[in-house]
């Protein structure tokens, strides 16, 4: 059991509202389980998004920043997320 992960959707360099709520719920679940809260941030030029995730309560950010991730495509995002989950085995992956 390696923490609670929250999937952060971002658009134009901003975390979308529902992902901010998800971070709030993730924080509560992480505290109940006594585990760290990790925000997942995929995209391009998403340094500001990662910083915002810290400000909203994340203990850590797992980021993937690449030109090919600029636009959401399930074929690109999906396998990357699957690989991370398989490697690091979080207790919870929380989306919207």
């Amino acid at each position, binding site marked *: 059991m390696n923490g609670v992960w929250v999937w952060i959707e971002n*658009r134009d360099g901003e975390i*979308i509202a529902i992902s901010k709520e998800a971070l709030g719920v993730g924080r509560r679940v992480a505290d109940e389980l006594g585990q760290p809260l990790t925000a997942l941030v995929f995209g391009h030029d998403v340094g500001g998004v990662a910083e915002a995730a810290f400000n909203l309560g994340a203990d850590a950010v797992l980021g993937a920043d690449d030109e090919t991730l600029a636009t959401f495509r*399930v*074929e690109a995002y999906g396998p990357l997320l699957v690989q991370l989950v398989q490697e690091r085995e979080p207790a919870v992956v929380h989306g919207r």
Partner: protein
Amino acid sequence: MKVVVCTKQTPSTTAVFTVENGRVSWSDPSGDKPNVVNPWDEYAVEEAIRLTENHGATEAIALTAGPPESDEALKTCLAMGCSQAIRVTDDAFVGSDTLGTARILAAAINKVGEVQIALFGKQAIDGDSGHTAVQTARKLGWTPLTYVSEIKSINDGQITVERLVEDGKETVTANLPVVISVVKEINEPRYPSFMGIRKASRATIPTWSAADLEIEGRLGTTASKADWSHVYPIPAREGSVEIIEAETVAEQARILVDRLFEEKVI
């Protein structure tokens, strides 16, 4: 090019639900049709038929996994204009979650063969998860295109669609075969024609069981990753009503304002 439209029979929107000991049941006091084609799926059925009319699809096949009662939903699809309907059913399927259902549907789509597009409604009005389309895509190894509001073109093994996303619309092109989930903006579902209803009422719907399908992975209640263990009705809201009575309206208003101050509403 064959098109399959996956549909689910769900409680009608006018059905009345009761929950007892974690079991949900429903009836339709206003009529005798407590079950219908999942309303979101009607748009997928319509689009499947339009693909045969406008995009050269050879067949629009309605597919459902469910008990014999689900034939009613499939007959609605036939009456609307689907060329064929198939029901997959087996005791081993009972209690499957969305992932189990996706395994069953993917196996059935493979058995149909030569399918280029599998259509779904964006979600079912009972489970509301919206998982099954994407999970079926994964089991098939096809590209999922969700929340599709328009099929723009199908050419040279590629499909271009418009997706309805929160901030607007996006145009996406993908290689066939694909799994598409549709939103209500895509079309206006037609009513079944009188001839269609007559034809559908006489149709025999083939059923496929687990033995007919090559299903990967386990199924049924014990294999389900999701367990609906706590189903309960929404607790009734508590509240009380106080009618303010006085000689004049002005007096009533004064008392009302006092009360609102007392309750710290204003």
